[in-house]
């Protein structure tokens, strides 16, 4: 882990508008400290999250991706997160099958009341990605001239 100590990962974080996004808000209002490595992207529901977004994040230089939505049973659209759960299960397995290191792709259920869980999960996700170092997975590099 030592070689990655100074490495600050960039993590694309897709949060459901109805829960985790609110949880993040509450964590902020409550002045809970967490690492600044996540770039929060608000989505209407985890069910809206196309696997394409995940690949796009890695292509564009994300070192990790985190998707978070409502607990099963709490979906604003009743079952979006349950469809998403199946989709993520297959996606995660596929990406790890082709060499994405376990620890780069994360999922969680966090409600708008769970500010502490939010804080803890950011820490956990950041540490896991940090330990792995910069991601090369699908990264698109167009190169620069000196």
């Amino acid at each position: 882990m030592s070689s990655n100590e100074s490495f600050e990962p960039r993590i694309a974080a897709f949060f459901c508008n109805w829960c985790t996004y609110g949880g993040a808000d509450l964590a902020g209002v409550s002045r809970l400290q967490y690492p600044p490595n996540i770039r929060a992207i608000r989505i209407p529901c985890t069910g809206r999250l196309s696997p394409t977004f995940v690949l796009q994040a890695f292509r564009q230089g994300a070192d990790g991706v985190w998707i978070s939505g409502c607990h099963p049973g709490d979906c604003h659209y009743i079952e979006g997160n349950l469809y998403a759960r199946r989709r993520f299960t297959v996606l995660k397995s596929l990406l790890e099958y082709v060499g994405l290191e376990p620890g780069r792709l994360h999922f969680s259920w966090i409600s708008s009341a769970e500010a502490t869980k939010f804080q803890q999960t950011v820490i956990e996700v950041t540490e896991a990605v940090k330990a792995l170092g910069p991601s090369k997975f699908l990264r698109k590099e167009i190169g620069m001239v000196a």
Partner: protein
Amino acid sequence: MSDKILKKDQAASFLAELAQKRDLHAPALAGGRLVWAPLEPGQEPLWQFNNTALSPKEFFFPQTECMMRFTNAQDHEEGMVMHSEPELARERALVNMRPCDAKAFGVLDLIFCQDEMTDDPYWRDKREKSLIIALACNDPCPTCFCTSMNCGPHSEAGADVLLIDLGDKLLAKGVSDQGEAAIAALPAATDDDLAAAAEAKQMAEAAIITTVEMDQINERGLMELYEAGHWDRTQESCLNCGTCTFCCPTCHCFDIQDETQGPAGRRVRNWDYCMSYLFTLHGSGHNPRGSKKDRVRQRFMHKFKYIPVKRGGEIGCVGCGRCVQLCPVNIDVREVVRDMNA
């Protein structure tokens, strides 16, 4: 132009000489497939082979080619700094190219370098820095129909040197000045060698088992061919994939894109193909070739009518037979030409 002799057991040293100022490439077997690969100096190339699965057009027209780079530099007075891509650093020799492929690049010269306004520097640079040593075919494949396409198993067009296999030696014909210079030091061929080469040519041409006629296509007006009844059947099973155009030595369509990342950017061109839904799709959403039939028709009309009309009778096909072998649904260009000509 002169006729020289190159003994096969001296070919490696002849090529090693060329390698002093050029990178050498030749067809080679890799994992059961015939591909173009670097030829190490001192290594003898294959003399007996069918043609490579894909055409060597990649040497002049890479599937992805960076055309220029740019950097968004706020401190620079122009705001944007442009960098042209470096030219090919070292000259090349492409050894044992089949005559159909060499011919194809001759045809493409007419398209990439038409006049002062239409002169593709990327194509030109690589063409000018490449010496093409073609190897005549003595054993054509059953799918070859080059003799019907202004070409042939011993065609010289587009090559700098044409080699003809005479057993333990090769007859080397200088075709261009560059080619002449490359073979200048070789001993001259005898009359017997020339006779053997002429016989090999005759036998090879006779071994081409399929021919197609183009006389009606040439005669008929464009709209008549365009509106012909057979297109509905021709297109029926086509998948609209890129196989036939990507393997083809004469297909040359491309699509240009700018890619950016932070302050850096590059302009790339990639092969495109008329079978694609995106080909000619307008920004408005309108597509003049909106249906599969339109796209399939474009491929054949372009090769067998539009190019001949616009390029002094040259045909946009050299009869290499690759698309015949590779099309996943076996749409055979020879049958299509027969339908067009019927």
